[in-house]
């Protein structure tokens, strides 16, 4: 067996952390930067950051990521590996035990771009994008599609995992009751404040989508966007799950694309100004079926893979944020059910 405690995980070694081992090359009293490598750059993050000298300003700092405000309320996120690839993410090799909040980055720091370096603050952090691969959210799925029946089974798997591993302080609590399309009849059941309040609007939204009534869709969307606990309000997470699944499934399954894109556009039209900036970002991408990789993977697995793969993928998504993951899964569940019904209907009747 291995006779040295060499950490087999290479990236921990890579990082040059200032402090006890400052880099002596510079002999001036400037602060010593932490140097990171970017591994993946989301397509949108690339567009937003790479054609300009000044990228923007640090907008918010979290443990696993920090956000940069570009211009007219657009963000890119510089993230730790465990957040994963995403359209607006730049994935770095910051080891998991280091927190973005603890490497000296503060809000309002300037973020500049010099050649293939991203420089944060006064040399507090330097990220090299030299070896970074571009990542764009995939729309067409690789594996062969399962039968609708099998897809439904996969949905059940996802649901079970969510019930056992989820967090139910938000709308995610409703997952347990998604069997029946007349959700609201469970309103009497013991739901948390947010779920109880949101339930009628959700079921109205679903009906509206089925009926294809823009007006009703918008009406209930307005009631939902920005609603619920959490930094990205619970309902937003649900909606982004819903829209992503609608877009992606429509893309891969033979159902009416325009119908779906219309639904998403209707919802999108209600977003601006109704919710927190970060949440807004996620919603806007969801409209086009773009999301962080774990979410896309989950939807892909539902359509193409075996139950145990779906299970793992679902766990990944459930791990997002605190309750966010569970709310997203709720959205995916609702969206998928909608389209699978639709698809089955087409199978039969055309």
């Amino acid at each position, binding site marked *: *067996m291995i*006779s*040295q405690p060499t950490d087999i995980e290479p990236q921990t070694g890579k990082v040059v952390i200032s402090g006890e081992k400052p880099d002596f090359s510079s002999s001036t009293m400037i602060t010593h930067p932490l140097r990171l490598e970017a591994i993946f750059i989301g397509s949108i993050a690339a567009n937003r950051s790479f054609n300009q000298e000044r990228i923007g300003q640090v907008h918010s*700092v979290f*443990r696993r990521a920090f956000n940069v405000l570009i211009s007219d309320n657009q963000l890119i996120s510089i993230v730790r590996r465990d957040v994963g690839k995403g359209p607006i993410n730049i994935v770095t090799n910051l080891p998991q035990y280091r927190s973005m909040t603890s490497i000296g980055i503060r809000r309002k720091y300037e973020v500049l771009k010099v050649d293939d370096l991203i420089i944060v603050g006064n040399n507090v952090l330097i990220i090299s994008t030299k070896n970074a691969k571009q990542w764009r959210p995939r729309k067409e799925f690789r594996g062969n599609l399962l039968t609708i029946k099998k897809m439904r089974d996969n949905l059940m798997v996802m649901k079970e995992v969510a019930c056992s591993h989820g967090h139910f*302080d938000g709308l995610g609590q409703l997952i347990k009751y998604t069997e029946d399309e007349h959700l609201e009849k469970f309103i009497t059941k013991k739901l948390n404040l947010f779920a109880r*309040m949101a339930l009628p609007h959700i079921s109205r939204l679903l009906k509206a989508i089925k009926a294809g009534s823009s007006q009703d869709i918008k009406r209930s969307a307005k009631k939902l966007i*920005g609603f619920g606990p959490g930094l990205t309000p619970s309902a937003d997470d649900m909606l982004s799950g819903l829209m992503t699944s609608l877009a992606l499934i429509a893309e891969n399954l033979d159902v009416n694309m325009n119908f779906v894109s219309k639904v998403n556009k209707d919802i999108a039209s209600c977003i601006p100004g109704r*919710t927190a900036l970060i949440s807004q970002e996620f919603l806007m991408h969801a409209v086009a079926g773009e999301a962080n990789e774990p979410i896309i993977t989950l939807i892909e697995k539902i359509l193409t893979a075996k139950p145990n793969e779906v299970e793992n993928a679902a766990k990944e998504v459930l791990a997002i944020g605190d309750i966010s993951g569970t709310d997203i899964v709720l959205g995916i569940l609702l969206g998928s059910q909608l389209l699978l019904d639709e698809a089955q209907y087409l199978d039969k009747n055309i």
Partner: protein
Amino acid sequence: MVVRVIIRKDTYRDSVTLMKISNKVAELKGVLQAAVIMATPTNKQLLRDVKLLTDEIERAGPNDLVIALDTENEESMQIAVSEVDKLLSAWESMEVEEVRPKTLDSALSIMPDANLVMISVPGDFAKREALRALRKGLNVFLFSSNVPIEEELELKKISKERGLLMMGPDCGTAIINNIALGFGNVVNQGPIGMVSASGTGLQQVSTLIHMEGLGISQAIGTGGNDLSKEVGGMMMMEGIKLLEKDKKTQAIVLISKPPDPQTGEKVLKVAGHCEKPIVVNFLGEEIDEIGKRGCIAATTLEDAARAACALVRGKKIEKTIFTLPRRRIMSMVNAESSKLSRMQKYVRGLFSGGTLCYEALVVLAPLIGDVYSNIPLKAEYELEDVNVSKRHICIDMGSEEFTIGRPHPMIDFTLRKRRIVQEAKDPETAVVLLDVVLGYGAHQDPAAELVPSIADAKTVAEQNGRFLSVVASIVGTPEDPQDLRKQRRKLKGAGVIVMPSNAQASRIAALIATRGTVEEKLFG
């Protein structure tokens, strides 16, 4: 009812942090509601509905963090507010990264109710750490090797006194409460318990049991030296007693390389007195020796697994030669061997698992005569140079001479890949026999590592007008991170004959190398 809101302009915290705050506060006495939300229009509406809306919030925007509190009375409100402030400021004053304790003690202060310590520090220091853990009443999984035998003895004595598990030193894997420790596979929970002095042995048996549709209650690793003269099988005997007590365990499997004679006897005696049926596989150990003592003897790991399953299911115990029917096997054999040139007559086994290598020796010897190795059955078949093959060989590439200064071959395939091609160049090589070990700790995609060099090897042979037959067995389950099925597909894609067990792989290798001449000897 008292209502208050605390607003933090443009405040961002991880949602996890936010939720922690609201949950913590909600638990406080006298707190009716505590919501940590962003001041979006819809949330404001909600607050209005539940009478929590105040002018302050009215003025707040979608990017402002609001903590809305609703308490029975002013007093509990005071407490709640100060709690929130404390929690928030705790994060504001210093958003600490996850603290990394530097010692067992500081780790215990973070997790006072820890119940197991995993140790994989260099051998010189292993005992100190293990000793400290035992003294603190913690079970130990000691992965480190090169721990002096007298230290192992001392550790195991103490663990016995204190009724603690002392798995290792040199313990590769164990499955405790359905959790795989070290190099372990994802297997079902079930009625079969194991005590094993061999890591890969434990993996082979537990995965085969899983594939049979049954599962493991507990699989205790004892470390490779437990059945030595000095240690005297302490942990294995403790393990047997434990599983005897364990309600979930219906049958027990014991695995070890041939033990020291007296020790083996001692262990079998204890096993004999156990109320639960016990299957024993002491690779190569005389069957009747074991039979005498009321245990079921199994020659191969696979037989051990199947015997245990049969016992649980109340079925008759049968030896498995191949799971496929004889005819199918022989046609596979002919397909391969017909392509061999006259010169090619030797099996060349390259193993990452020591026990699997030893098992191959045990299976091959009676079929194709004696096999050279770095861990031979008989001293006279010791390879003088492990890097030079002669006649039939089976090499344990996980042993010292290969692992000094580099990770174990289950993680780092460099040497094995090189050796595969080397064997292909040898005109006398008929079959390359491999083991592929999956599970936690192992390489995340062994097939991807092996396939290219196997392809190379086959082309090398071809270029020299030969055909190289490659046989492998995969130790793993479809639930493993690497997914048994994916791995199998990749290997088959590269023209590898993949068998369900190491024993079967060894047998078919023998058949191919001998052009089926040992068929009678094998099927009898």
